[in-house]
């Protein structure tokens, strides 16, 4: 079965993109990223002035795993979850908010941003994104993945190891 984690397409996508950019502008954070709880990046934005981000895949999988580990710790202790989800280093920090029950919104900031503003505007963005998504009337894009598709994609898997396979045989 196919599952879009969040209904992010068409007009909704553009609106959410704008909200993420607003979030960066108002909070002075570096990056904002929507991550699926399984660890996949769904959307991200970067402030114009921000340095190139590290690997987004790595960041997303670590954020999602860290979140799930923290949630598990909370449960062990009889809590539904922990509230504060700030990580702060000397220069850079991250702030995380749940976005519905399938995704997370992560903001990465540095010294040029005040933590209070980051929290405030991240929370606000989460509310606004929820609204946009729940009011969305965009049709789910019609895509189908048939056997043609799976065969062609399967061939790409073979290609991945082709050269090296020969060396080993």
């Amino acid at each position, binding site marked *: 079965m196919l599952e879009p984690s969040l209904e992010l397409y068409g007009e909704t996508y553009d609106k959410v993109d704008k909200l993420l950019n607003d979030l960066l502008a108002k909070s002075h954070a570096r990056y904002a990223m929507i991550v699926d709880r399984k*660890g996949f990046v*769904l959307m991200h934005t970067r402030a114009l002035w921000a340095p190139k981000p590290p690997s987004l895949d790595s960041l997303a999988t670590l954020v999602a795993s860290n979140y799930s580990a923290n949630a598990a710790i909370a449960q062990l202790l009889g809590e539904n979850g922990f509230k504060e989800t700030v990580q702060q280093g000397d220069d850079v920090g991250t702030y995380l908010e749940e976005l519905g029950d399938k995704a997370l919104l992560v903001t990465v900031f540095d010294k040029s941003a005040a933590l209070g503003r980051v929290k405030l505007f991240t929370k606000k963005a989460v509310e606004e994104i929820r609204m946009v998504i729940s009011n969305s009337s965009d049709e789910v894009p019609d895509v189908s993945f048939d056997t043609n598709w799976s065969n062609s994609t399967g061939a790409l898997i073979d290609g991945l190891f082709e050269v090296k396979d020969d060396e080993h045989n």
Partner: protein
Amino acid sequence: MSTINFSAREINFKIVYYGPGLSGKTTNLKRIYDQVPAESKGEMVSLATEDERTLFFDFLPLDLGKVNGFKTRFHLYTVPGQVFYNSSRKLILRGVDGVVFVADSAPNRLRANAESLRNLRENLKEYNLSLNEIPYVIQINKRDLENALPVEMIRQVLDPSSSVDFYEAIAEQFKGVFEPLRSVSKLVLEKLAQTT
């Protein structure tokens, strides 16, 4: 369940390497990382103890390229095999699309193999999943061991009805590493093609 990202035009799948401690799960990912061309792989992330035992997971994203305008990506994960890390194992299974079960050929690990497979079934149940519906294959690793058990014996224990594809491997030497990955990936793709 595969995740589709319409805006980035990507389909993402999650493949988990499962199996008892020291069976060679991390070695599989390392060898895959070594062999895949740079443009098709991302960084490998390993959360391990000082003595290189997996503590939480290893992660390696693979990028297959586009078909019909959609990019297909496989995210490979390993779980920590040591018995007492079960809570971490459970977390890694969230959203799994396919499993490669890495069994150890050493005689004294036969029970650990069986126990790990039982543990996999149990953990999947928490997500309302079962091995009957999730594509999975078995890799029988460490075939180079002098006292390696006969493949048939290991298979009898793990898959008595012989319904699952299995592959002999010496992961350390990249033998039998690609085949199970290819096999499970294709099963995962076929499954999606059947249900959409």
